[in-house]
Structures are given as C-alpha cells and as structure tokens.
C-alpha cells in the first residue's frame, strides 16, 4: 500500500492549514456561502438535510488497520459513532460539526488520510477493482496507476473548477469489471497490445445521473507512459468546451455526445500532440517507484487447503454457504479473498459502527496483513486470508454481522443514504432496501436465483447506481409523495448497459411485491444456467411489464 513520503506529508499538512483558514474566514463572514461552497466541497464537506456530511477519501478503496482505528475514534469523538461506506469506495460521516472539520482533517492527516476532492467540480477519487493485486486474471496491478492519477489530480491548478464533477476508474481484469469503468467520465481498461506492451483502452463519456450513458472508446491503446499527458488533454478539452450554462448538461458525456466520440477523440488527439512529450510524460522510474509500494505481502509458501475446507464445509452448513458465496479465489495457493458483507437486514447498506470499524481493523491485522479494501458495492474485503484460517475467521465475523452470505445476490443491495440523510434525495431508499431484504430472507432461494444486482437510488443523481442494476430502483417525487420507478437490464460490468424503465412508478409499500413479481417472471422464463440478466436480455421487458402491471 502507498506510504507518504515527506512531500505527501507536507502537502497534506498544508491542506489542513488551508482549510482551517478557509473555515475561519467562512465562519467570520469573510467568505460568502457561495464562495465557501466549492472550497468546502473540495474538502468533502456537504451541508446536508440534518447536519453537515463529511466524505473522507479512500484512494482506490484501500485502508490500513491504523486508519480504520482512527476512523473509529473520529466517529466517536466528532460524530454519532458510525460511518458509511459509499459506492465511490469512500467513507462518510453524517453528523460532524462544521467548526470541527479542520480538526478532523488534522486527525486524518496523521494517518495519511484526507478528504481532498471527494466532492465538488473537480477530479474525484479514482476507483478500481477491490480485488486488485490478488486475482489471477489481471493484466497488471492497477493500483500504482491509480496512485499516479491520484497525485496528478490532487490540487491540479487547471482542473479545480471544471464544469462538473469528474470521475475516473481503472480496471485491469481481463474477464470482469468490478470498477464499473464504462459508466465513469473516464474509464481506463488496462490492456496489452500485440507487441505485449502495457497500456490502456480509454473510454470517455460514460456516467449515470439524469442522462445515463455507457462511455464509448476514444482510444484503443494508450501506452502506459502517456497516461497523464493524455488525461491532461482530455481534461483540457472538457474544461474549455464542456457546457457551463446548464449543470444538467455539463458532464463530459454531453460534450462527447455533441461532438460524437470520433469528433471528441480528434480534439483530444490534437491537444495531446502538443503535450505528449512534455515533462508530464511518465517515466519508467516513476511507475516502478510507485509499484514498489504495492508489492506482495509476506505470503507463506502454502498449498491449497482443499481437503481441509471440504471437511469443514461438511461439518458446518453455514460455513459452506459463506465459502461458496462470500469467498473468492486468490492468485496465491493456500490463500483466499474474503468479502465481509455490510448487508445484514436491518442495517443500512454500507453502515458500520465505531466498534465494527475496530473489529475490522483487528481482523485485518489478524488475518490479512493489516489491510482492507472498500468495494463499490459497499462491502469490505480482506484480500489475503489463509485458507486454513477461514473457518476461524467465519466464526469470528458471524456475531459481528459481517458473514451474511448473500454477496452478489438480490439482497446484496447497493443503496444510497437517500431521504433519511441526503438533502438531494426525493425519496427514502434505506427502508426500501430493508423491506426487500425482509421479503427475500431465504438464503437457499436467493442462491437459486443466482447473481442479481439490485441497485437503489433516492434521486436522479444515481449515487445508488440504479441505472446499471439488473434491477434498478429510483425514488421519485410526485407532488410531495415518494414513489419508486423500476428499471430492468442494467449492468456495470464488461457488458455494461443502461436499464430500461419498466413503466409507472409504485408506492413504497408495494415495492417488495413488485420485486417479487419480477423475480417470478425470471424463474418462469429462465433456462438452466441463465442469470437474471441473460433471461431479461433474451425475453425483453414485456413479460415483466405484463406480470407487474397485470
């Protein structure tokens, strides 16, 4: 994992001092509310429905145990004793006091954390696959490239006041995309060209929100050393020509669409020609230096514990289910990737208490080299667990509430904080998630249904990624009442697609039954081996419509 050097430490300290000064001027009335707004947003600070909300950055989703312990302490000392893991792999506090935020930032800086650019019209936290570095099918570890992008984008003087927020995601797996890169402003797929050289396929102009789009490819192969100069060219074209007259049309996807992907790509190439050989061009040395922070932990030389696990599975049915659903294979023999689910019914998806944060820190130290990853599905990953310790770990996490063996099933819901917390929301989302989780409480039935992404957003801003849910739920406001619109057929993976709206919206108490009917259609129509998405793509939306609105 990346470790700050004296430059990073100095910049972090200067940032804290800057924000302290800005907060003091804001509280003294020297900064008008609209002048302070972008400054506080670039420090992750929202003024929310009930209180301020602070979004703390977790670069590409990685945390160390000491950072988790500090987060736990911060939630106790400055908040209400819990935090929320978000779909951008970040952490949110829902109740900090404005005047405490500089102190919170100072506490974070002590453990090499910050809240830089977690909001505002600037380049946000770069995200990636939570299994980076530990899976067998990745082209290379994407995290060093994410760190390189993090540094380049941090306090970038030219791109701090873009037309709108800007999100970059990197994926290096050949067969899956857990980073949803095609629905980002820039999606970078790591590839090797025919000569075996490493580079990126560049998608630009994907995104959710009001006008959801899958990002087209604007460059099939970008050599790795050209990463930053090319990003700079894309951002400069966007900064200059992105629309600023209407915030709903200000995302880069609208510009790409207006110019056509080809036209946009030409503009970027023309810009890039001027700067591609500038000193911003990466060096082999810079990449290797960054890679040196992401070396393998001190793995033991092990064999796969196949027989042991088979015996343990036989003895413990719950362990068997958990192993099947929440544990993934690891590139190293004798190790496994463990997903701690934060989707226990009755707890808002992604919420963790201060105690749970400390428990996760202890688990990381005990079982996974002191590191964890946050997933964009709002779960937590211990990436390096010995197979012969899995049963012990399962026993440990079951009472903590992290062993709900529903990963990737219907009840592993992505859900934004919604109207319970967020000032933007039109409707509550957490109670909808909970009602659906209660309706589908039979694990065997969930396993029979297979992988289904159910994503819930409380408003058009789509923090819950409803457009790319196989089943998407969007909270809408109708004359002051909360209703919910369903879409079907979305995907955020390699086969990315935007869901199609089923029809008129429903009242909240109808939602579990509506989801149930949709599932019934799938069960009726599926062939063996078909996932929900496969069946939907084969039969289309009409059978679902007929059943739901019958």
């Amino acid at each position, binding site marked *: 994992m990346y470790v700050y*050097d004296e*430059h990073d430490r*100095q*910049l972090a300290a*200067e*940032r804290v*001092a*800057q924000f302290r*000064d*800005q907060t003091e001027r804001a509280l003294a009335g*020297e*900064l008008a509310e609209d*002048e302070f707004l*972008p*400054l506080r947003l670039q420090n992750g600070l929202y003024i929310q429905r009930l209180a301020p909300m602070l979004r703390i950055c977790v670069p590409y989703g990685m945390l160390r145990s000491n950072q988790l312990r500090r987060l736990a302490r911060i939630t106790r000392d400055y908040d209400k004793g819990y935090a929320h893991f978000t779909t951008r792999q970040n952490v949110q506090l829902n109740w900090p006091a404005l005047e405490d935020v500089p102190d919170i930032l100072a506490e974070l800086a002590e453990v090499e954390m910050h809240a830089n650019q977690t909001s505002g*019209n600037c380049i946000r936290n770069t995200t990636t696959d939570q299994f980076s570095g530990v899976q067998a099918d990745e082209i290379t570890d994407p995290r060093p490239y994410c760190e*390189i992008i993090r*540094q*380049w984008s*941090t*306090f*970038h*003087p*030219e*791109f*701090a*006041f*873009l*037309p709108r927020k800007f999100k970059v995601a990197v994926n290096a797996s050949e067969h899956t995309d857990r980073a949803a890169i095609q629905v980002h402003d820039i999606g970078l797929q790591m590839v090797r060209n025919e000569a075996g050289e490493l580079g990126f396929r560049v998608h630009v102009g994907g995104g959710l929100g009001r006008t959801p789009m899958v990002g087209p490819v604007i460059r099939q192969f970008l050599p790795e050393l050209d990463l*930053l100069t090319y990003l700079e060219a894309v951002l*400069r074209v966007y*900064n*200059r020509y992105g629309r*600023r007259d209407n915030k709903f049309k200000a995302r880069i996807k609208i510009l790409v669409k207006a110019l056509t992907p080809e036209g946009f790509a030409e503009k970027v190439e023309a810009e890039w020609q*001027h700067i591609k050989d*500038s*000193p*911003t061009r*990466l*060096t082999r*040395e*810079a990449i290797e*230096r*960054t890679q040196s922070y992401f070396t393998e932990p001190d793995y033991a030389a092990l064999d796969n514990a196949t027989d042991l696990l088979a015996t343990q599975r036989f003895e413990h049915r719950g362990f068997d289910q958990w192993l099947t659903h929440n544990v993934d294979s690891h590139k190293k023999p004798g190790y496994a990737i463990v997903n701690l689910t934060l989707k226990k019914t009755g707890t808002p998806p992604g919420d963790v208490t201060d105690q749970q944060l400390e428990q996760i820190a202890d688990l990381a130290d005990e079982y996974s080299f002191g590191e964890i990853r946050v997933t964009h599905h709002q779960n937590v990953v211990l990436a390096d667990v010995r197979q012969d310790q899995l049963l012990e770990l399962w026993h440990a996490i079951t009472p903590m509430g992290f062993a709900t063996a529903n990963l990737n099933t219907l009840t592993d819901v992505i859900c934004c904080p919604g109207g319970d917390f967020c000032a933007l929301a039109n409707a509550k989302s957490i109670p909808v998630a909970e009602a659906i989780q209660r309706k589908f409480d039979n694990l065997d039935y969930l396993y029979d249904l297979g992988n289904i992404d159910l994503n819930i957003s409380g408003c058009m801003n789509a923090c819950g990624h409803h457009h790319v849910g196989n089943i998407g739920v969007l909270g809408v406001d109708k004359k002051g009442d909360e209703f919910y619109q369903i879409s079907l057929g979305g995907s955020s993976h390699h086969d990315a697609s935007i869901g199609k709206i089923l029809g008129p919206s429903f009242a909240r108490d109808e939602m579990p039954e509506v989801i149930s009917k949709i599932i019934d259609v799938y069960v009726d129509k599926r062939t063996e081996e078909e996932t929900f998405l496969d069946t939907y793509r084969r039969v289309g939306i009409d059978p679902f419509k007929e059943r739901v609105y019958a």
Partner: protein
Amino acid sequence: MPKVISPDGSIRQDNWVVVPRPAEGESLDIPADQPALIPADLWLAGHEHFTGRADIGVWFDSHDEPEILDGRVNELPVIAVNFPKFSDGRGYSIGRLLRERFGYVNELRAIGDVLLDQLQFMKRCGFDAYVLRPDKDITKAQKCLNFFSQGYQAATDTDIPLFRRRAS
C-alpha cells in the same frame, strides 16, 4: 485605479482600464490618457493601429479562444483573462495555453471575479498579476498565494512534476 497583486503578494497600483466589448453598432471607446485592455479579437482586427503601443493590451473572456493570437502574443504588453465567475475554470486553461503553447512572456493578468482562494491556482497557471475583487481583503493575498509549497503536477510555474523531482 486597480490595485494589482504580484505573485510574491506585493501590491502596486496601476491605471490599466478594461474596455468592455462595444455594443452592436458602437465603436471601441479607448480612453485617451490611460492604458487600456481591449477585447482580443478587436485588437487583432485592427492590430496595424495598435502594434508597438505600450498602452494597449487585450483581454479574453473565459469562452474566448486564445488561439486567435497565436504568433502575435508578444506584441502585447499585457494580456488579461476575465473570470466572469470564480467557479468558471476556463481561464486557467487559457493561461497555460498562452504561456506554454504560445510562449507569451509579458504580463498575464487575472481580472473579474478574482477571489483569494483561487490565487495560487492562477499563479500556477501562469498569471503574474491579479486584480482582486474589491470587497476582498487584499492583505491576505500573500498567504493565499502560498498555501502550498509545491505541486504534484507540472504547470506553468514548474515543468518538473513531483514524480521527476522524487527521482532526482
């Protein structure tokens, strides 16, 4: 008369006036006794009248394209870029293009909705004169120009990004 901040935070006064774009059918109203900044495209259209005049500079608005002055920028003693709203970031790109691509060496001035917390970004993007919005506390400019001792990226102030400095 504008108070102008320099990159080191020192304050001076000068009397450059920004001449607004004339309305349709009107002509440019250049003051007789003061140096003036005129819209860049109008300067270009009549540049034979202005070349060599130390009292005529130009200004760009945030949506203007500085490309129109490619090859001519150093005929101008001052170029100003207007920030119509502090949150309109196009001026930063204009600054870098003027400095890095078109090789502009004379004064580059930030005008308009220029606030304290944007000064260091402006400095890094090549601006070396700042006309702060008058209601802001100019004595705080020096501090705000120097919140950060260095940057991660190359920009107009340094062409050596931190990753290259770390290597040396």
